């Protein structure tokens, strides 16, 4: 299997910050692989994505490969008051291919409609983005990433605040995309779900562990990742009761 992205001992810091936001991150993403990026809020998941996207420069280490990423941001980062339809948002995925002097072509439109159909939104293509449900909005942003047709997809907390049907559709879609030979990275703090991914990368400012979920997600690793007690490990037939206090961040307690 070909390696799409390789990062070696990656570190990055925000301007004017004294300590790095992430450190010692080393991983490989192969074609057809889904990596769950696990960690608490503020643990550096979004920062890692920003470095991969080239928005934030690495202070140490290198990223090889993956010049082309598609990115699915958290839905609350997008403006609900903008005069854009689902189709308009999906069409934003063509901007990397269409030079600024060229207009949107019919082919681009068909492509965008197909992407919306793939995420089950063919019925709402002309509905204003702000009027869609949270799950539908997340799917529109995924459709936009599909339109980009990039070999690697980065998704930032795609399952947060998403209704069950949207979540299930999304999981199936990510499996399909991996099957097509794309690499997928999903930032999440849902441990149960992480068991389904091919690899997990545990991140709490520095990388705690990277590997197959079954071997990697030990009590010690998870405690170090989330900085709190793990009541029960996921996938052991018990209820998963992971550290409520730190899991969702202080604002939820």
């Amino acid at each position, binding site marked *: 299997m070909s390696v799409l992205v390789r990062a070696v001992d990656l570190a990055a810091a925000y301007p004017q910050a004294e300590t790095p936001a992430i450190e010692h991150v080393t991983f490989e993403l192969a074609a057809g692989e889904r990596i769950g990026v696990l960690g608490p809020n503020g643990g550096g998941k979004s920062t890692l994505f920003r470095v991969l996207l080239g*928005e934030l420069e690495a202070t140490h280490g290198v990223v090889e490969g993956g010049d082309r990423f598609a*990115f699915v941001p958290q839905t609350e980062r997008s*403006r609900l008051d903008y005069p854009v*339809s689902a189709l308009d948002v999906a069409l934003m995925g063509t901007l*990397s291919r269409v030079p600024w002097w060229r207009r949107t072509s019919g082919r681009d439109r068909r492509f965008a409609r197909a992407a919306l159909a793939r995420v089950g939104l063919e019925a709402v293509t002309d509905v204003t983005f702000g009027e869609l449900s949270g799950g539908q909005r997340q799917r529109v942003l995924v459709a936009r990433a599909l339109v980009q047709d990039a070999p690697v997809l980065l998704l930032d907390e795609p399952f947060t605040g998403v209704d069950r049907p949207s979540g299930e559709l999304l999981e199936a879609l990510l499996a399909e995309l991996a099957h097509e030979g794309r690499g997928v990275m999903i930032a999440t703090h849902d441990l149960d779900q992480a068991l389904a991914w091919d690899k997990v990368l545990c991140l709490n400012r520095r990388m705690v562990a990277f590997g197959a979920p079954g071997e990697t997600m030990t009590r010690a690793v998870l405690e170090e990742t989330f900085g709190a007690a793990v009541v029960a490990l996921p996938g052991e037939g018990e209820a998963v009761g992971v550290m409520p206090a730190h899991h969702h961040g202080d604002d939820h307690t």
Partner: protein
Amino acid sequence: MLTPFHYAFVQRGALELVLLSVGAGVLGTWIVLRGLAFYSHGVAAAAFPGLVLADGIGFAPQLGAFGAAVAFGFGVERLAHRRREGHDTLTALVLVGALALGVILASDVFHSQANIESLLFGSVLAVGDADLAVAGAVSAGVVVAAAAFGRRWLAVGFDAGSARALGIRGALTDAVLLLAIVVAVTSALAAVGTMLAGALYVVPAATTRLWIGRLRPWQAASVALAAAEGVVGLWLAVEVNVPPGAAIAVLAGGVFAVAAAARAVPRTALAAVTAGVLVAGCGAGGTNARPVVVATTTQIGDWTRAVAGDEVRVHQILQPNTDPHEYEPRPDDVLATAGAKLVLENGVGLDAWMAKVVSRAGGDPRVVDLSTVRTARRQDDPHWWHDPRNAEAAVRAIAAALGRVEPDRRATFARNAARYERRLRRLDATIARCFAQVPKAELKLVTSHDAFGYFAARYGITVIGAVIPSQTTEAQPSAGDVARLVALIEREHVKAIFPESSINSQLADEIARETGATASYHLYGDTLGPKGSSGATYLAMERANANAIIRGLTGGRRGCA
């Protein structure tokens, strides 16, 4: 009802507004969408230091305004790149800096003599072919830029965090938008004035935003509304004779208020209110007979009335107590100029805007710059009328000019002028006598700004200083200037400071308190006083000034009645 549109200058104004509306409506949607309304306003205001610089070094004011606006936009953009504050905070930050720089440049570096704002004189009533061409070109440019970059502006605004991943160079894309705003707003500024630039670029788009949720229809509606508000506002302005910039701004604001209220209020009530407003608008206004002579300043108006008597209709542009620096022509002014046979100007930069009004009004009046006949001269000082000998020369020139325009009445004009000149000579003699009674050592003058050079020179008064040490009222004294002035006043035992009636006298009062001098006698500097005041005519004004100065300097013991 449509008579205003028979005038060529109104037609040109309407065309200019329609042309500007295309760019304004389209760019306005981006301004509203990207939260750049305050930035657009800042661009207009930030032109000030550029104008001062252009005047000081000597290049085209439009270039100065544009350069300053580009620097302003660049400053905001650079800061926005690094910091988290919204554009509003950064705009305020850079704007305050720009204005402060302008004040320092005007006050301490160039000691700006001219009226800086009038360098960028723009009014929709004084639109020329070049302005029309610029408006058309800018609108075309905006439409092209929006077509090319619109999708990227939308994507960056929609979620900036994904811009990079979508293959958009966010900083470059935003720079194009900010630059488009700079170009569009400064070009509108030079053609139609600050007020209108704001009213066109922001308000229509904000209004239609309330009703329309899709980009293309919204942009079309903004263009249509901007054009409609412009043309209707222009018509209203001509009908009720108010400056069109203000009329359009008020109309646009009113439409926004109605539109916003309408989101909450039943439609029928709305229709009633709208109809009421329209009816009220139609009822107002009236027409004016054609004047023959246009006088720019209050004193020239006064002289001209004295010389012309009832034979000629005199249209005076500036009104008492208005700062000539903040003048925007009213439709009446342009109408009068269009139909005038003679235009009388003060010259020396005080009413430089009049040249544009004359050239755009479409008439063919004889223009006389009265400063050319003055007998006493001071470099770059437009306040020559404060020497009655100059007034005498001006009155003689007015009579001659009127005689050429109306040869049949030549004898009447000459007789009236001769009588008025006698009164001027008597005035001059009286004032000179009054000052002769005050010991020379006590004749020391401190005023709001250097408007009394001619007066002081004529009557042997020493000007110790001015609270604003430059002739533009935009300039501000530095702390050092004020301290030096206070020390000077104390050393020279100056007993009185004289604020001007048309300029805020707070600082003069403060200095008076500091030094123990009195500041309770006001002088008439730039304009005559209103009807019924002691400075309602030129003769009364000069006497009142002399009286006030002598009373101030002698602690009220003497006067000059």
